């Protein structure tokens, strides 16, 4: 499974969504369950599975799947603060 598919799966798992309901365009504004507490769980899941640790400034920005993918891509290029 590539990172993108894995991220979609983890977002679904953290927010209690079926796989069909999760797509690349999903943002926290679309999903009532994506509140600040679910966000904590989602960040923990992503860190556990992707073997990364987000910078404290990144965490509040991970509010859409696009943003998560972009952050991971930036990290893959080594273009991050930590």
């Amino acid at each position, binding site marked *: 499974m590539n990172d993108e598919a894995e991220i979609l799966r*983890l977002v679904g*798992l*953290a927010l*209690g969504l079926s796989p069909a309901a999760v797509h690349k365009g999903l943002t926290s504004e679309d999903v009532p369950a994506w509140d*600040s*507490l679910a966000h*904590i*769980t989602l960040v*923990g*899941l992503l860190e*556990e*599975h992707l073997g990364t640790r987000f910078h*404290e400034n990144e*965490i*509040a920005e991970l509010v859409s799947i696009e943003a998560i993918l972009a952050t991971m891509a930036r990290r893959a290029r080594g273009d991050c603060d930590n």
Partner: protein
Amino acid sequence: MRTADILSYLAANRERIAAAPGFRVLVLRDVTVEPLAAPLRYCLAEHGLRAEVTFGGYGTAVQDAMRATGAKWDLVLVFFALEELAPDYDVTGLDAAEVAERLRQELESIAAACQATVLVPTFPPPLSGYPLRRDPGLADQIRAVNDRLREAVHGAPYPVRLLDLALVLGGLGWERALDPRSWYLHRLPFSGAALQLIAREAALLGAEQRGHLKKCIVLDCDDTLWGGIVGEVGPERIELHPREFPGSAFYDFQKRLVALSKQGILLCLCSKNDEEQVFAVLDRHPHCRLRREHLAAWRVNWRPKPENLRELAEELGLGLDSILFVDDQPRELEAARMLFPDICCVLTPQERHALPALLDRFFSIAEPQEEDLRRLVAVQADATRLRERARHGGSLDAYLASLATVASVHRMRREEVARACRLSQRTNQFNLTMRRYSEGELLNRCQDPSYAAFTLSVRDRFGDLGLVGVLVARRENATAEIEALFVSCRALGRNAEDAFTRACLDDLRKQWRPSRWRAAYMAAARNGQVERFWERFNFSAMRTDAGTKILEADQIRTAEALGRHVELTD
């Protein structure tokens, strides 16, 4: 365990969990702890319970408890934070006595309002770290607060337990247990790994309350108790050694098992092997820590393991749901699971270093309570009783006389409340009204003069069965009403339930002098055997209210013949 595994498990088992008995947890807190909910649901599900978790507001523990009065909580978790209790404590220091006294008062208010067992964690080190000029005094002050909190909990006249975070999170260390990033971002002090360990301990307390704790470990031998196949390599060449890996992992696993057996957990073998080979290891291997005397029973033969498991459960008088079955072969576990879905199956890890801690999640690191220890040890005596009964052939009278049963009946004492509560939660067969009590409710009934609560403890020449019965009565004007009567199935079949009831009714007659008696029988799935119980005491059915038969009597009869072969003491 990873968070994803927990969430996947909860999603995959949604229906099964939904059908399990509910367990209501109220979380009162000064800090963010919501991510505790998923591991708590997972851990309670492992014990056959469905968690219903409710979180209070921030810093409003007592107010939330007051608002939650009457909601029938099973457990109240209270997360106080020194950062909220004394915001400048890392600069100004702590007055341990003052903080502990405030906590004591708040816990007392919470326990009184919620009428449930309260679980309160000790305080960790400051999340901001110790002050730059290291002040050893602050660490001492936090330790002093925790010591005083422990004293307050131990002496409390209400049901409260301490969750010693230094013990529970000791394996992680504070570095991995506390998360400053989460603290500053979300006011969440604990890491995910720490929350899982806290959830595990809270769930064990829940399982203990409901009588869902595992009582027996059934073990395979080859590649479980030692490395290698003893039938192939011989006892001398199996892997089992105090220092040499992988034998050292098996050696330490055996040490843990022996320690559990000393806490009253029953150990059994279920192995496809020649018995002679297995006992050559247990009796003579120089590094084998598990010996024949640690075993409650065994089935070492070539028969299918599910058959052996069923026999072991019958021999020990245990429900299959109280058994942990440990094996290195997934197909053996699957066969057991297929036939007995209630058995908890545990696969030995492929990486041997993980073996010693394999069963940690099933057993609390808190010390077992004395009453539970006695009850578990009593199971071993039950097997002896079964053999004794067979020896007496068909004569029940001769068998009962040979047991020399002594029943101790007295008003419920403070230290008996926790055990009586658990008994009320799990007794289904000899239970007249199916009334389930929280510790708080029972404590109230011990203190309120309009109630009388009695306990029955039984011993015989084979051992001590411990506290096995409870009767609760309520006085209303001149009427004595039996609110609850339940006796553990372990103590049935020896007339102790008759002797107990007779002694309680005699006591009530002398103390309350009632002119009218009232009792009830509520029909449930498994208590058909007691439908006519009250007739033995001259009660007559008057009416049925919502499925409950109400019985009354002007005068009760307590004939000497009831309770034959049972000696009563106070």
